[in-house]
């Protein structure tokens, strides 16, 4: 077990370095620069621009900047924001809580709604109920999120006037509902489909058929065997989904003025505040990698028989 954890941790490092390289190259190829953007509208003094360019080392080659960046990163320094002029780590970590809260709430909605739907459709595979649920759940994945968000806002904040439209509102639960719902609906649908596939697979497995042959009631089979064996698959899938969820926050957070890493990423890309954009991307990816690492290890703990290549 220790060897396994160690091995996973060792795999972690090259992945992180690869990720930083891709992020760095990608964002530093982005044309335009923060020096301009920080000066506001296109009304600026060329001298100021030149000065800002120099102050942020934008005159050095990309490779030199990457090596410097990696060196600083290794010491836990994510650099300074071009526009805010203080540490990137402070800017991005200040936003992480809100994003994690949103992503976890959305995942909770996805699990609570998605898994039962998936189970039912698997058990009723091929019937009209299955098709109906498939359509409903596929419908969930098929709505552009910003559209859904504005629609929900209209219904719950304006028509019924029961929920605040947007913002963090000091962390109140009522502010969390709409963005979490907007983000969660698609994932509930996705999870329903994944659960359905997983359950169908388990139902087809030998031991379930053996159990059936032994004459256990259908319900008992469903509950005991199917659930336990599908659980592992759903757990790993959820971990994978979590990364994608973190990514989707870029849209939802913007619609709802949710003060998380996603909205910060979009803003900083548009403002060409590259150090902050790098920080946001790195944070989003690190959360995903860590969640998956933990789940992999948990998976191993739950089910030590599984052979990892």
């Amino acid at each position: 077990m220790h060897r396994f954890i160690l091995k996973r941790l060792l795999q972690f490092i090259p992945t992180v370095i690869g990720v930083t390289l891709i992020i760095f190259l990608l964002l530093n190829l982005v044309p335009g620069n923060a020096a301009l953007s920080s000066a506001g509208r296109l009304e600026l003094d060329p001298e100021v621009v030149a000065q800002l360019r120099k102050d942020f080392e934008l005159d050095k080659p990309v490779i030199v900047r990457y090596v410097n960046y990696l060196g600083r990163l290794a010491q836990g320094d994510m650099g300074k924001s071009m526009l805010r002029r203080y540490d990137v780590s402070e800017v991005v970590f200040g936003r992480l809580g809100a994003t994690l809260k949103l992503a976890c709430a959305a995942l909770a909605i996805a699990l609570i709604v998605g898994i039962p739907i998936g189970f039912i459709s698997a058990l009723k595979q091929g019937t009209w109920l299955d098709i109906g649920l498939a359509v409903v759940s596929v419908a969930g994945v098929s709505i552009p999120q910003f559209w859904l968000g504005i629609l929900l806002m209209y219904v719950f904040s304006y028509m019924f006037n029961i929920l605040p439209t947007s913002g963090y509102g000091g962390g109140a639960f009522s502010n969390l509902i709409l963005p979490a719902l907007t983000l969660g609906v698609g994932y509930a649908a996705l999870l329903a489909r994944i659960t359905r596939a997983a359950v169908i697979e388990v139902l087809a497995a030998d031991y379930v058929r053996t159990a059936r042959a032994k004459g256990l009631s259908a319900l008992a089979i469903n509950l005991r065997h199917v659930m336990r064996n599908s659980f592992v698959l759903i757990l790993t899938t959820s971990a994978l989904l979590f990364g994608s969820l973190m990514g989707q926050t870029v849209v939802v957070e913007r619609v709802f003025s949710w003060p998380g890493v996603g909205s910060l990423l979009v803003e900083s890309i548009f403002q060409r505040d590259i150090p902050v954009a790098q920080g946001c991307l790195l944070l989003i990816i690190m959360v995903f990698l860590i969640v998956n690492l933990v789940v992999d290890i948990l998976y191993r703990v739950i089910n030590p028989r599984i052979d990892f290549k």
Partner: protein
Amino acid sequence: MNMHQRILRLLRQKNLVIGGSFVAIIVLMAIFAPLIAPFDPVSDADLMRSEMRPDGTFIFGTDTHGRDVFSRVVYGARISLSVGLITQIINTFIGVSLGLLAGYWGGKTDDMIMGLTNIMLSIPVVVFALAIMASLGPGLINLYIALGLTNWSYSCRITRAQVLSAKKADYVKAAHSLGYGHIRIMFGQIMPNILGPVLVITTLGAAEAILLEAALSFLGLGAQPPTPSWGGMLSSARNQFFTAPWLSIFPGLAIFVTVLALNLFGDGLRDILDPRNKAKNVGSKPK
């Protein structure tokens, strides 16, 4: 299994049939757009008829520029389907090639490719595409590139897994002993086997790409105006959500129906093609 039974089984896959029919309708709409659309989606603009409600002439109303929304939605099928198709061709090409290389050669090549795949998997597609679009700038071609380069890790993994199991299979061993070259074995023997799963991924991926186009349009990095892309139309109408609802409802529905159809079709394909499901069908009660 005779022909009759095969057709019956296909029909039993209701999602495949429903999804497939809708996809077919949308494809036909895209192909025959000039025949269906009463107006040109870009040049038939007239400010004097800006934002008219749906009526007999403009059945989906007109947009702010005074263009026929129906014609734009019809032509939009071309844009959205091309986004789905082209990005998936690129994705599949990259994914399958790398997957074949990794699975067939193994060793260092495999480690490198799987390392890269892990990195790709860890960067959420929206975010990755966003960063690429930011460096390339908005536009349809750039959109193909951004979405084509970011979502190939699944097909890569699946291809590799299939290759690994196929390598042990007798027919590949036989091909080896017959002295077939690597390329011939890869493409002649292994490719046909991975076609099914890759087709499923491609269909679902096309649906995802269409949604991503909408998301990127919302963030200001989609296709350029005046391109009649559904995502772009929906996103630019978001301030008129309540004052001119027809501007968002129709492109929104178009995205919804297309993505829904592609998803249903993909699910149906998976049910049919997945060999494990066949095993299940044997065990289940005859209907």
